[in-house]
């Protein structure tokens, strides 16, 4: 029997029992669709978090005052007390490191901004000219903080501040009162709409010395360091730690973390989650496989007379086995394709419902789901097919 004939024969058999075929394709497709949708969800969550962190800027090394006990990334670092000041001069010294491209010191606090009688709580970020490039931010209007003028009474404001305090009019050149100081607005940030932690649209950026004076502090909240390249991140981290150790009289009283490390942690946790979810969904594929076996066993029983006839007509055992295997494979393949489409539709629905979630199923999951469907279908088809091939023709012919 030619392969094409085997396939056609199996196809006719599958379409000859539409309800049975429909149910089996449905079971298989639900399994595949579950894998596709759930991994899309898991991987979407992973990508969302990774993207959020990446939007902080790339090749980033972050310096925090205070020594982290664990050495690794620890959210508690964000609130540790400060044993020794991390100063603007410390930050400036880091630009000497060969692997460092640029740095930006950061002081953070909250205050009130007043313009024309309108008042608003704002987050103050005190930094330097390089902050804009380092954070990959854009300006909507005007210019950013001037370089080398840490005491200039100027401000760059976020898009929300511009809208709420200045309305449709331009803020550029206007004088804004922040706390008890007056600053001239020289630039407006482009709207970003998102950002982990703080909303970049609601900040007022001041020169670092102005902000430090405002909050009466000498220490920095962070120093952001951008390495010259992805490959140089570790080197930059080492250089930064060394420089600060020397400057702090040999004491390692700062924590240097790389954004990569933070990212890698999230990446790993959420990646594992995706695998776990895929594993659970794969169970439904195994169930579908067992269903394939049962359905094929029923088919063999149902078609015993036909198998006897084929043997009487001179079909070899292999021909009959192949016909039933081909049928199982066809049903699984149809289920896999239907499930793939169903799953992609589900992922699309997810993306439509939750716009910020990039819920695309990872390629490995799609390949694994389709592969598993086909392999389980075939594997569980072997037993029924062998049973069909071994049937005694005389006995089989009597069943009609």
């Amino acid at each position, binding site marked *: 029997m030619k392969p094409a004939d085997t396939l056609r024969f199996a196809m006719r058999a599958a379409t000859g029992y539409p309800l049975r075929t429909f149910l089996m394709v449905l079971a298989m497709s639900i399994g595949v669709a579950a894998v596709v949708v759930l991994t899309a969800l898991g991987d979407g969550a992973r990508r969302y978090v990774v993207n959020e962190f990446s939007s902080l800027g790339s090749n980033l090394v972050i310096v925090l005052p205070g020594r982290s006990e664990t050495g690794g990334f620890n959210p508690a670092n964000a609130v540790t007390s400060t044993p020794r000041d991390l100063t603007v001069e410390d930050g400036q010294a880091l630009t000497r490191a060969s692997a460092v491209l640029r740095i930006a010191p950061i002081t953070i606090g909250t205050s009130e901004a007043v313009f024309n009688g309108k008042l608003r709580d704002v987050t103050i970020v005190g930094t330097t000219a390089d902050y804009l490039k380092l954070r990959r931010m854009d300006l909507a209007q005007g210019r950013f903080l001037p370089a080398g003028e840490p005491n200039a009474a100027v401000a760059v404001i976020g898009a929300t501040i511009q809208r709420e305090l200045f309305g449709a009019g331009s803020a550029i050149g206007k004088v804004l009162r922040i706390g008890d100081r007056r600053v001239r607005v020289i630039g407006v940030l482009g709207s970003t709409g998102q950002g982990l932690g703080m909303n970049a649209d609601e900040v007022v950026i001041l020169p670092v010395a102005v902000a430090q004076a405002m909050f009466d502090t000498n220490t920095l909240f962070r120093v952001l360091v951008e390495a010259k390249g992805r490959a140089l991140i570790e080197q930059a981290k080492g250089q930064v730690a060394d420089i600060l150790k020397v400057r702090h009289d040999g004491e390692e009283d700062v924590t240097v973390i790389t954004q990569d490390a933070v990212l890698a942690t999230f990446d790993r946790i959420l990646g594992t989650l995706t695998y776990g979810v895929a594993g659970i969904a794969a169970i439904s594929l195994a169930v579908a496989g067992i269903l394939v076996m049962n359905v094929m066993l029923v088919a063999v029983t149902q078609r015993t007379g036909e198998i006897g006839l*084929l043997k009487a007509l001179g079909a070899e055992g292999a021909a009959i086995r192949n016909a039933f295997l081909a049928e199982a494979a066809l049903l699984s393949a149809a289920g896999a394709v239907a499930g793939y489409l169903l799953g992609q539709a589900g992922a699309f629905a997810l993306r439509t419902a939750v716009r910020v979630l990039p819920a695309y199923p990872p390629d490995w999951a799609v390949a694994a789901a389709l592969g598993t469907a086909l392999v389980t279908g075939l594997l569980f088809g072997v037993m029924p097919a062998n049973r069909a091939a071994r049937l005694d023709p*005389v006995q089989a012919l009597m069943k*009609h």
Partner: protein
Amino acid sequence: MSLIELSGIERIFKLGDSEVHALAQLDLAIGAGEYVAVMGQSGSGKSTLLNLLGLLDRPDAGTYRFEGRDVTTLSADEQARVRRERIGFVFQSFHLVPRLTAAENVALPLMLAGIEPAERGRRVDKALQDFGLANRADHRPDQLSGGQRQRVAIARATIMEPAVLLADEPTGNLDRATGEEVIRLLEGLNAGGVTLIMVTHDAALGARAGRRVVMQDGRKVEDGR
């Protein structure tokens, strides 16, 4: 040399403790082109004999030579090949595949033999023409009358131009007139040279055969022309 030579054939079915001698000490030689009616009471071993002749079953003892070759020792696949190329079956209950059309049913043996679709189509068309089924080619079995179904089955049994046709009560499910039609068809094929071995209960039908083999309790009790 005979087409079929059985010698010392035994076929024993074991049912728990008891044994049924479905065939016992059977010697039978059938020449090419003969028309043999196998008769006898129910349970006398007629179907068992036919299954054995058709290589669907193996004897417990004795030898079966088909076209001069000992076929009892062949492997299952080798026997399948002999069935495919040299033997045609006609059953009482037709045994058509319900989801396939008449043409597709007739084409089954050609498909199993791996013959090209174009060649298959030609031969099936001709067969359907010969058996008066040309306008029924695309009908499924449930859209055909009993007589038409059996004609499709006979077309299928003969499409490979076998040496021998084995028919187990081919008219058992048909009314008298239709049965007569089918018998004439089979006799026509026999006249064309095919060896015809037919199991029948009908004495009148048996009388038309060139040779009658009468079975009783698994033994051949009469063999005459």
